[in-house]
């Protein structure tokens, strides 16, 4: 089976170390459509045409921060590089904060949704609203964290498959 080469260069597959000739090569090729759609969702979530209040460099910095919080260094480094060098890109470091009220509230929210989503309550949404974040931007921000939860787990799973013993 020939697979679109883009699959092997997609962020998740490339970061996992999985290869075409590895133990999971055929399985990955069999789900090429899903991995291509995964890359399309990364583009939509991290580089959308209408980013609202969260610009692209902030989104990729948050993606890097979330990957780091989840122990996924390969992904964290990749997104950190995409974020470039700006005031926002420094927020990729999980210990970094912002003096901007909305961004500072967003960071608290992002860190908690990324690592302890079960503890999120209605009050956490009210905190964002009180910091001046519009409802549409709350949804946009939640999509970034939610997509990254998928991406770090997919990449970790692909890495396990790449090391699988037959």
């Amino acid at each position: 089976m020939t697979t679109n080469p883009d699959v092997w260069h997609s962020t998740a597959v490339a970061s996992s170390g999985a290869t075409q000739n590895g133990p999971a090569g055929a399985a990955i090729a069999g789900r090429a459509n899903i991995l291509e759609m995964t890359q399309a969702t990364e583009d939509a979530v991290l580089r959308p045409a209408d980013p609202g209040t969260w610009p692209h460099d902030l989104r990729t910095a948050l993606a890097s921060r979330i990957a780091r919080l989840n122990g996924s260094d390969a992904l964290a480094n990749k997104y950190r590089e995409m974020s470039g060098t700006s005031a926002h890109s420094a927020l990729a470091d999980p210990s970094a904060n912002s003096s901007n009220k909305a961004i500072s509230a967003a960071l608290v929210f992002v860190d908690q949704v990324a690592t302890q989503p079960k503890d999120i309550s209605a009050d956490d949404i009210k905190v964002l609203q009180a910091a001046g974040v519009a409802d549409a931007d709350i949804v946009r921000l939640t999509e970034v964290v939610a997509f990254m939860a998928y991406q770090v787990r997919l990449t970790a799973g692909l890495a396990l498959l790449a090391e699988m013993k037959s």
Partner: protein
Amino acid sequence: MSDVLHKFTKTVPHWRPRVEPVDLKTATDEQLDALQVTPSNTKVSEYVLVLAHDPQSLKVRSPLFNAIMYDAGGLSRSERELGAIGASMVNRCIYCAAVHASRHVQIEKDDTVIDQIFANGENADLSPRDRAIFDFAIALSKSPSQAGPKEMSALQEAGLDASEILDLVLSSALFGWANRLMHVLGDPVRKAV
């Protein structure tokens, strides 16, 4: 609010948004396109109307979701649901757990597995194959690094091949995403009778 549900249930609750959903009357063309609203299809859930605030993400996520849960081959439908349920329990998404528990019951025409899981959580009494699948989904959902070679070997010993394991990774990971939308942006509440 007192009507919010905190316990896992097979009865699908009502989902009450914590942010204002998009109003169909004032929705943009891009939002209507992502919502797939047509003259013959004007019934859209509040959840999807909330997600329509970010139409570009909504539009690409729906086909991805369907491919991961329903594409032919690989892991069985009910075993993909088990991955989704494991994730939803770790993330305490009562709504997602209810929807996918009821699908599991529907496919299996039996609720023994779901009753076990909801009664005993991680200590549920399961067949070796369901045990390995559920344990892997729980570990990957808690933290990606918790799913390791030990959990992988258990899957292989239970008879899963690489394609089936990839489908389990995908369905469990997908619910890391879905749970963070559903559980974060709204509350599960009792359906009005």
